[in-house]
């Protein structure tokens, strides 16, 4: 199971970032909306994520597959 320390660290990280946020208006989001700023894996990474899920034991928490759908783990 995920340790208590790690859970606390995660919550602290979210709290720190969330508490230091500033309001950004739509017209100020040109950098945030850049394709390379997307907070997800990009389509060009699809195949490498696929082979990593076959050859490694861990998967998930990256917007991709978490298991199932193929003969991998």
């Amino acid at each position, binding site marked *: 199971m995920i340790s208590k320390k790690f859970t606390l660290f995660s919550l602290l990280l979210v709290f720190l970032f969330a508490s230091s946020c500033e309001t*950004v208006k739509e017209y100020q989001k040109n950098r945030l909306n850049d394709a390379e700023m997307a907070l997800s894996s990009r389509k060009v990474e699809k195949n490498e994520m696929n082979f990593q899920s076959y050859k490694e034991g861990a998967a998930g928490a990256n917007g991709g597959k978490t298991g199932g*759908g193929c003969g991998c783990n």
Partner: protein
Amino acid sequence: MKKLSLTLIGLYVLFLHGFSQVSQKYEDIFQSKPLKLEEINLVTSYYSQNGSHSAVTGGGTSLLGLGANAVTLPGSEKLNDFSNMLELKLVGYGETGNRHTILAGLGIDHHTAASQKYITASGASSPDGTRVYPSLNWTMENLNKGTEVGIGTYYSHEYNYNSFALDGHVGFKNKTGGEFGAKVSAYLDQVVLIYPKDDSTLYKTGTNSLVTPYDQFVIKTNASSGAVYSYLPGSTSGSTGYPTASRNTFTASLSYSQVINKSLQMAILFDAVKQEGYLSLPFHRVIFNNHLERYEKLPNSRTKLPIGFRLNYFIGDDVIIRSYYRYYTDDWGLTSHTASIEIPYKITPFFSVSPFYRYYTQTATKYFAPLYQHKVDAAANPVESYYTSNYASSAFNSNYYGLGMRSAPPGGFKNTYLASLEVRYGHYVQTTDLNSNVISLHFTFK
């Protein structure tokens, strides 16, 4: 008094005009529009790997049996895979102002694997395989409220594995740049039980028949026609083809992303995954310390808990830092850490190069042991209840690095519908001695 009245009337007309403009704008935005093809994405990849710890041959170059009847199986993991994925994106607007997005995808992979030949000990199995996987997703967004809801379905077919999946998701945006997402998905898979047909006396019950290691079925091959039939134990009426076993994967995903300032944003992603059913693969051999051959046997349940963070930062006008970290743990004893960084550098506003590096480390599962390391007792039965020699379950580190390039000129590439082109090459090295290369191309047409 007259002046005051005229001023009030003037102000009223001004406000009325102002509000009527706002109303007109909303009508313009939320005008009903039928679905229209907005974007086509094509991703094509070539992947090549080499290594010497194939799970098909028991985790390495192995000797099946002892004495004059012993057979050597090469542990090569040489594999080439060519994959293509086409995705159509259609967007339309309903009468209530909701935006509807439909993603229709079709993927086709074709691979050649050296180890696949050794599903039969003679090396006579086909080394090729093709996987076809269509998908369909629908999302409805309420642009006014910042909410979305969607459902999706997915199917995958290859000769020894079939999968059907359903998912549903919801999303909410708040006014401070935060976005919460929740998704549930279910993969309902069927593993085709094609076991290696070696001359093992363990599973043979007679001429052309084989009892599976789990005693669920008897598989018989008609000697003259070659047709395969499966029988339930004790039954005389068989079904055509190989038997199958279920493998179900249920996932609940939560995500929260937050804009921190004009150049910085982060996301936290958490998945809770429950797998049930037949989680082994029938063609993964385990060869014990006495050279007894069996097939991978793993528990029929697995719970996985990965949690990930992303932090993306746009520095100045030219440099972006994309960073990612993931911690993973499961109830098979495997824990892992993944950290990656990618630094896209914009040579022009429309052309960038992106070096990247990813480090991965994992501990072994409780059930892994290398070739000949799983033990048998005095009666030649396995000492352990569960066993595998698949190196994906072993302890190792890996490094993955490479370079990407992206070009997206304003208005697209001249005289074409091509809006952007992305190329990415990566080299992967595992401490198990597995190494691979992958090159991918992503075309976006608009």
